[in-house]
């Protein structure tokens, strides 16, 4: 009976965090690293009502040299019926300012290395529990390895210190979701290639072509032969009407991967637009010969039909 009671007390103490636990920050800091970093210059936008999304986004956008306020972001990311903001819309809104929202690898070291690189990190936290979630956006602006604390701009609190352990549990309940806002010419040290290039493709999809081109260029400086970045660069140039640059990018990709039938299809379309119908036909025929994903067959057939039609029109001019 006594032993049982003692066990309960120990359990309560453990739950209350009264027992010494090893620190989280210090062991994962890169070897020659500052133990304390705080990005004090990062501005603060106190949130109103349920609007931590606009506030947190304004904080990281401002730190990335975008002149914007939380109030201006409300109409871009706030959903009255949900009393909050969705992660996807924070990404989308960042693109609208020609910035590249880069989702971090879901780990504490990744978060800390961004802070060390002078970039504040926008995080989603679940301050409640899994069954009663309370979703909240905050911005991590610093860490202190000596006290094992993180420093945040959060809600109406300009400078909130929270223990790394507490932060990690709320962050974990939100799937360790975190983004940084990059100038499209910047690739973070240790960035994941696929994640970065897909983020660049997000800018392209949002039709921010100049920003997307800068992001693809930056990706290609880091990873010179990346197929998706080369394809994206070609497509962005095509969309901007720079057919010569588009052709160059597709050819560069085909030099790396001659069987890239999508690059060859797009090259064929570009040649068609440039009026080089014979070469266009040669390329689309080669593309169809190397296709290995039949879902794309109708798209290639459409390109071929367009080229064929142009050829017929050329051979039999009107009147």
């Amino acid at each position: 009976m006594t032993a049982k009671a003692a066990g309960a007390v120990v359990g309560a103490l453990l739950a209350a965090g009264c027992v010494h636990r090893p620190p989280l920050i210090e062991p994962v800091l890169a070897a020659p690293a500052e133990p304390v970093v705080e990005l004090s210059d990062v501005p603060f936008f106190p949130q109103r009502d349920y609007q931590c999304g606009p506030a947190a986004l304004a904080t990281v956008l401002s730190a990335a040299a975008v002149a914007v306020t939380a109030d201006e972001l409300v109409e871009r990311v706030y959903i009255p019926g949900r009393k909050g903001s969705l992660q996807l819309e924070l990404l989308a809104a960042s693109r609208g300012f020609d910035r590249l929202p880069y989702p971090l690898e879901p780990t504490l070291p990744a978060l800390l290395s961004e802070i060390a690189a002078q970039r504040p990190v926008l995080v989603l936290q679940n301050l409640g529990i899994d069954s009663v979630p309370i979703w909240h956006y905050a911005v991590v602006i610093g860490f202190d390895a000596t006290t094992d604390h993180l420093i945040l701009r959060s809600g109406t609190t300009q400078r909130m210190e929270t223990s790394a352990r507490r932060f990690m549990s709320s962050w974990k309940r939100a799937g360790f979701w975190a983004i940084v806002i990059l100038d499209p010419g910047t690739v973070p040290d240790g960035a994941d290639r696929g994640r970065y290039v897909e983020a660049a493709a997000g800018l392209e999809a949002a039709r921010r072509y100049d920003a997307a081109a800068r992001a693809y260029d930056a990706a290609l400086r880091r990873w010179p032969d990346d197929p998706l970045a080369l394809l994206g660069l070609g497509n962005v140039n095509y969309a901007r009407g720079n057919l010569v640059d588009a052709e160059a990018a597709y050819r560069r990709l085909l030099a790396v991967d001659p069987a890239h039938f999508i690059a060859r299809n797009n090259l064929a379309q570009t040649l068609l637009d440039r009026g080089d119908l014979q070469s266009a036909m040669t390329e689309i025929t080669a593309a169809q010969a190397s296709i290995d994903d039949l879902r794309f067959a109708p798209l290639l057939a459409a390109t071929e039909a367009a080229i064929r039609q142009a050829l017929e029109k050329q051979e039999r001019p009107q009147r």
Partner: protein
Amino acid sequence: MTRKSLQRACVIAISLSLLNLGSPVIAMAGIIDTQTVIEAGQRDADLATIRAGLDRTDVRQQFTSLGVDPAVVDMRLAALTDAEIAQLADEMQQMPAGGDILAVIGIVFVVLVILELVGVIDIFKKT
């Protein structure tokens, strides 16, 4: 389903390319866009771009019914990728919407205070 969608895409692509023949204005007709390639690499099912038109209409309706100003809905949709639109169309009501702790009232509040006191959660500021 997939086949039908692809047929539709094919018809649209051909129609667009026909419309644009001889025109200096460049449509994206024959170009396979980057998002489609990403989507195709991630899924076996149909290509998201093919559904995008339908999904965008659906998401536009959901946004307006949730009180988003119709005047800004299109601007918001324009910055999303097709895959993101598809995800919104399916899950907008369930996705985390980061808001604020002010949303918590009544019994939920009491429960949370208890959980806070025993250290399970951390929503209240400490000084």
